[in-house]
């Protein structure tokens, strides 16, 4: 055997070993069960095969823009006041569809330069143009708008990941979904009842502590009457319970300050606890900066009441007896122990930057997945065995090449899935992925058939076995390259533009075809060469 061939064989064996490690790692035991456990450790099944919950969420990114625009309006008002410039009104004309648009009306004449300077210095992410009759239009620069939307999505993903991690779901998938529609894909293997998880993910958990300025009132009208028909400019009317903590809770309305003393952003920690009545509650601590602000607020409002507001609902009101620095408690509202636990967890994970809603939910039962794996594996084995046996009968000696190549192709493909787990990329095997495997097997058979038929043809034309093998491979190679490259090109495009299932198909197909180029051409050729070196000149080739 020549040295060149020996090296090729060593290289092939090393490759096989490498991918076997991907499939099994180093198994703890060599029994059937031990090997099966090693495989399940390395090759992860998709939700469609394993069972679990699949959700697609829509992030309402306009919420985040609204917050920014409202903030901008506050900045404008304050700056204009500081520079003693009169204006009639600053508002968003269409917060629903164009939340970044701000209209400033009735600006006093001659304030043009001041206004432009304010926007340039303090609100550089906005463009400002003059409109009719002393009014000005502002809108966010497109690049900032895109940034803000994308940030809302990535922040939402981060927050949801935090929350799901704390729920103890193993191997969740949380990623952006689709092409720029601000959607998130969440896959939770093994979760059979998504109700609670959905609530927890969706909760905005916007915590604010505000000053109570009036109430409780039995209705909104009553509140308005009490204030003489007009609410004070710096106040808000929010719903809540009549008597927080009391057993007979009806709806009530509270007048609270528009500005919050502290908010969810200032939280350092939140834990479930019990209040002085022994009811479940959530206690929280504030960050250093937040604590300082809370201290300033409480020390200047001793004797007043504060309101704890969660998602724009007053949870409880409490009297400020003394300055408080960094601790607080959310109680009232008849929390159950589980709710207190969930709420503290949600608060710890941070608030969502925008509200979300669910577009798609699929719960695959473990029983269904188990059935389809069993049936699918059985069918695949029957099909494979039929193909392998046929190749042996039809091509005799060369059939061994084809069978080795096909089996090695599958080993490499599975090993690739295993290595993806080791590398932390986690390409799971899904039903569409299996479609990719089938096409790979089909094209693998095809490559072998192409080569063998060509070799037979060359032999018929009177070539010697070595030259027939050589000619057969070099002619078939052109065809194989063309078929493989075209398919890989389309698979790559499917991977880039497709979603979920289409991607799974494209991944296994691309890698399977690359593996096939190696096994059906390189490996098969090495086997032929090895067989030929052992033959005497003039011996026939078994094909």
């Amino acid at each position, binding site marked *: 055997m020549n040295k060149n061939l020996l090296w090729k064989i060593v290289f092939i064996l090393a490759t096989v070993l490498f991918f076997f490690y991907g499939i099994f790692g180093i198994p703890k035991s060599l029994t059937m069960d031990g090997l099966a456990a090693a495989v399940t450790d390395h090759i992860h099944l998709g939700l*469609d095969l394993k069972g679990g919950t699949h959700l*697609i969420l*829509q992030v309402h990114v306009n919420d985040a823009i609204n917050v920014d625009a409202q903030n901008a309006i506050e900045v404008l008002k304050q700056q204009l006041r500081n520079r003693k410039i009169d204006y009639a009104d600053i508002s968003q004309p269409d917060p629903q569809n164009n939340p970044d648009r701000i209209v400033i009306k009735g600006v006093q004449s001659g304030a043009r330069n001041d206004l432009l300077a304010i926007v340039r210095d303090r609100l550089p992410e906005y463009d400002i143009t003059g409109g009719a009759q002393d009014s000005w239009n502002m809108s966010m620069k497109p690049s900032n708008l895109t940034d803000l939307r994308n940030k809302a999505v990535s922040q939402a993903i981060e927050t949801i990941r935090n929350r799901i991690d704390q729920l103890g779901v193993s191997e969740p998938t949380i990623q952006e979904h*689709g092409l720029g529609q601000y959607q998130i894909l969440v896959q939770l293997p093994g979760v059979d*009842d998504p109700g*609670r998880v959905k609530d927890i993910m969706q909760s905005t958990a916007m915590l604010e502590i505000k000053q109570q300025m009036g109430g409780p009132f039995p209705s909104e009208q009553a509140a308005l009457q009490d204030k003489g028909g007009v609410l004070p400019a710096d106040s808000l009317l929010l719903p809540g319970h009549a008597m927080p903590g009391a057993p007979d809770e009806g709806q009530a309305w509270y007048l609270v300050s528009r500005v919050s003393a502290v908010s969810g952003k200032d939280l350092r920690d939140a834990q479930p606890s019990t209040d002085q009545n022994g009811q479940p509650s959530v206690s929280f601590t504030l960050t250093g900066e937040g604590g300082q602000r809370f201290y300033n607020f409480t020390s200047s409002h001793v004797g007043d009441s504060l309101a704890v507001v969660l998602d724009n609902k007053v949870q409880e009101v409490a009297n400020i007896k003394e300055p408080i620095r960094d601790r607080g408690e959310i109680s009232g509202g008849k929390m159950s122990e589980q709710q207190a636990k969930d709420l503290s967890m949600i608060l710890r994970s941070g608030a969502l930057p925008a509200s979300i809603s*669910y*577009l*798609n*939910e*699929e*719960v695959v*039962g473990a*029983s*269904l997945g*188990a*059935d*389809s794996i*069993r*049936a*699918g594996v059985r*069918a*695949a084995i*029957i*099909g*494979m065995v*039929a*193909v392998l046996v046929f*190749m042996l009968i039809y091509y005799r000696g060369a059939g061994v090449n084809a069978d080795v190549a096909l089996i090695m192709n599958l080993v490499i493909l599975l090993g690739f899935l295993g290595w993806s787990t080791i590398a932390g990329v986690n390409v799971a095997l899904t*039903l*569409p992925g299996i*479609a*990719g495997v*089938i*096409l790979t097997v*089909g*094209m693998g*058979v*095809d490559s072998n*058939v*192409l080569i063998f*038929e060509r070799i037979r*043809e060359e032999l018929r034309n009177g070539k010697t076995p070595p030259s027939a093998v050589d000619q057969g491979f070099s002619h078939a190679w*052109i*065809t194989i390259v*063309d*078929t493989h*490259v*075209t*398919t890989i*090109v389309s*698979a*790559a*495009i*499917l991977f880039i*533009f*497709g*979603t979920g*299932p289409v991607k799974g198909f494209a991944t296994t*197909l691309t890698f399977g075809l690359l593996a096939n180029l190696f096994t059906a051409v390189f490996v098969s050729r090495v086997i032929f060469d090895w067989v030929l070196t052992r033959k005497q000149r003039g011996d026939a080739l078994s094909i």
Partner: protein
Amino acid sequence: MEFFHNVNIDFLGKKWYFLAFSLIFSVAGVLSMLFWHHIPWGVDFRGGTLVYVRFSHAPDLGAVRADMDRAGLKDPKIQLYGVASNNEVLIDLGLRETSEQALDQGKNKIIGALEKNVPAGKTDLNNGALLTIKNYLMDKDPMHLGTDAEAKYTAQAQAIADFRDKVHGGVLNSLDQLKGAPGVDPAAAASIADGFYLSDFHVQNVAIVGPQVGSQLRTQAGLATLYSLLGMLVYLGFRFEWIYGVAAVITVFHDTLITVGAFSLTNTDISLTVIAAILTLIGYSNNDTIVVFDRIRENIKLMRREKLSEIVNRSINQTLSRTILTAGLTFLTVLALFLFGGEVLRGFSLALVIGILIGTYSSIAIAAPILVAYQDWRIEKGKRPLAMPGKAR
């Protein structure tokens, strides 16, 4: 062993038969898509609520329908699903709601309607979520565990659910079955038998798809396929001549049309996995076409004096043995999947079974004649006949 040796069939001479065959099937499919079953999009694409239920006994569809009626769910599609011995039923609410919340309620209504004769204060184990079982065990603490009770009861709940789902396909018939279950503590089993009862069904799979996602998915799958065909066209134009790329794309389009048409004619749902199968058939058909094209390219160089139709015929015949073998073997794998792959894979394997047949047929009957027809057209217009691709290696 060899099946085909020195065959010489005049394939191009039969092109009018091929055309008639293709036309009949594509037109029938298109007519069905337009006027009969339309395109039977699965729930993934059309939106709606789909619940797969497995019963412990042979299901009575009339009774299920009556239950749905009572719950105010009007006119759901209820059908048996899979092999009869599995007792599976599919309930499809279609898309009558436009908001996702409403779809969510639809699911709960279906489950609620099927839950009958609930013993007071007991929970259904056949539809009990892991969390419900764990919380119950934590509450009752039948094993008198100390500190790490949560982890142990979670494992117990998992063992019970696994026993139910993986060993018994989701439905237990008697709570006594739990006693011998692997990994389940006898005390826990006894406690479960105390607080739970067994309904006669298990919800296997729930799909709730909002209308927005469905249409978006359709557009996206369509665009991805379109782009990938474009990529194919460009690559083939670069490797051969542009007409080869065009012929290959027309061929693939023909295959897709007939396959989708077959789904419409048989009114089989086109789900996400069927889309994967259609992508597979596109890849397969394309592979087949290129093999023939490659041979044509090679023969054009060898047989400079022959007519193109002669060359094409010869090339098809030379590759026929390979074509039949590959198609036959791939068909074998796919057929195994269709026959033994189970109900979940049914639509998927159906698309592949049709696709492999059509994909093989079309490279001979559609792709090759297009090349010749183009050549004839060029000659008729008095242009120089295609000297043919010199670009290949």
